[in-house]
């Protein structure tokens, strides 16, 4: 079974987040493999261990994204494809999904595993768009994944439980961050990662045309700071009604 896992390098969630002058996410500080993607890699590796095959990483980002790829290769993935091109800087979700789809399509995988959303952009748009562009069934919010023959089934997390959803393969699965604890890179894994292939491809290699972004961020403002609340004194009479009214107005109860 060939499993593609999408991975992304993101600013370290433990560091302060910054934007560049054009309102795109600053990526020149501390960066890490997206923690959600690490869960995707873990699921890919577990499926490979259970069913055999290969785990191929596909990433889009600057040349520096190799660091995040190396981390995932150290965990045990077999090889990687990095889509990197100056033309893709500041790409919106549409372009990102099309670029990833072009790279993934040529791999003809049985299963594509994505994280539900990235830690930095958090749009949650890429996995569904990717499935559409690739023409694959998509199983989202998966917190459990099983492969039986040519079928993949997941537990799709909902607010009050989960649904069991299945699809014929090839298919795309978007997993939740809590699906599995990612393994850490072993020493053997780190040493082995040195000799694993990381192929880089640009827009020309993929035959892509990059349109102007359909969506740009025009302005960013800090969230308003919290206002002083209302203090209701318990006078033994109307205090409770006043609090009930406030909670109802806030649609809390």
């Amino acid at each position, binding site marked *: 079974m060939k499993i593609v896992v999408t991975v992304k390098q993101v600013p370290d969630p433990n560091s302060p987040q910054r934007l560049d002058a054009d309102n795109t996410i600053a990526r020149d500080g501390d960066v890490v493999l997206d923690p959600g993607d690490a869960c995707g890699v873990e699921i890919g590796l577990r499926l490979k261990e259970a069913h055999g095959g290969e785990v191929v990483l596909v990433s889009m980002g600057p040349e520096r994204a190799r660091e995040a790829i190396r981390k995932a290769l150290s965990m045990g993935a077999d090889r990687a494809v990095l889509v990197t091109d100056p033309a893709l800087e500041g790409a919106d979700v549409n372009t990102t999904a099309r670029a990833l789809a072009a790279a993934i399509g040529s791999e003809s995988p049985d299963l594509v595993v994505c994280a539900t959303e990235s830690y930095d952009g958090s749009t949650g748009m890429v996995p569904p768009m990717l499935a559409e562009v690739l023409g694959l069934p998509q199983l989202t919010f998966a917190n459990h994944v099983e492969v039986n023959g040519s079928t993949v089934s997941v537990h799709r997390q909902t607010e009050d439980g989960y649904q069991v959803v299945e699809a014929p393969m090839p298919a795309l699965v978007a997993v939740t961050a809590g699906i599995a604890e990612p393994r850490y890179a072993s020493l053997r894994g780190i040493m082995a990662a*040195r000799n694993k292939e990381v192929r880089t491809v640009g827009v020309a290699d993929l035959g892509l045309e990059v349109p102007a972004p359909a969506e740009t961020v025009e302005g960013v403002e800090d969230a308003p700071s919290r206002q002083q609340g209302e203090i209701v004194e318990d006078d033994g009479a109307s205090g409770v009604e006043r609090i009930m009214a406030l909670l109802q107005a806030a649609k809390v109860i």
Partner: protein
Amino acid sequence: METTTGTEHQDIRASVRELCNRFPGSYWQECDQQRRYPEEFVRALTQAGWLACLIPERYGGSGLGMLEAGIVLEEINRSGANAAACHAQMYTMGALLRHGSEEQKQRWLPELAAGRLRLQSFAVTEPDAGSDTTRIRTFAERRGDRYLVRGRKVFTSRVQHSDLLMLLARTTPIERVTRKTEGLSVLLVDLRQAGGRVRVSPIRTMVNHETNEVVFEEAEVPVENRIGEEGRGFRYILSGMNAERILIASESLGDGYFFVDRATAYARERVVFDRPIGHNQGVQFPIARAYVQLEGARLMRDRAAALFDRGEEAGAEANMAKYLASEAAWEAANAAMTTFGGYGFAVEYDIERKFREARLPIVAPVSNNLILGYIGEHVLGLPRSY
């Protein structure tokens, strides 16, 4: 040996940190309070292959060098953990690797690399012979195809978490050798087969470190478990000492950086008299001084490890690295205690535990005074002072 690059050093650091992050301060506090061996932590390190990093690849390890091993231990201690629970699994096998027969290596190294066999106990010191190693009295008497071992060892660590114990014993009485360094042999004692002939009594210490008094009462050790030639054990032991010094130096570096990391963060956020205490030179300078000393010690550790890995003489540098790192860590420990004030004594801040732990390397596995004696005699050419 595998050669590695700065990139791989970063990967090693990042991966060890990630593993250690799963064992937070509360885990170590609990182990410390219950005097419990950190089984889960040691298992995780073993499974990830870190403790087998010095075993060559052909025996199932990673074949890395002393610098990489040092980086692993440094990161473990920097995280707030304590590598002393298992560091010896890394290097005790050195005598076997360098002086054992191919048959012995095939028999034990792959099992050690896989973590199925634990060799992390090394019995040398005796109640009446510590640094003066040649004075040991434990005697292994040859009887046909086996030795009968009689004697008493002290401060023998991790015996209760070892399958094999490396033992230094006299095989020729000191009165019958021309040089007192002769007549000593190294035996690998299989504790699983020792029956009641190896008696272990724990010694309670001020840190959570399993160490023991071990009494051998006619314990039988097959001759095929002797490492190298009979009578030449002292040389075999010495060759492992430099490795041990470099790795202990690395742990002290980790301790020191732990204190500097914690003290710096606390000095930045703790506000007294309307400003962070880090504004005060009385708080800031001790931390900075400790950092300067740690960075200097790190350079010496790196140099000692590089010499060792190239197979060159590293005795002076390994000893100096251990001296500098343990003293720098202690300086950092005191700076952290001062910075944290009363909170430094509160268990939940981890400072008091690490403070106790950081004091040990000034004394063991070799006293810093003996390192000065070594430097005075062997580097400066002064009369022997001990």
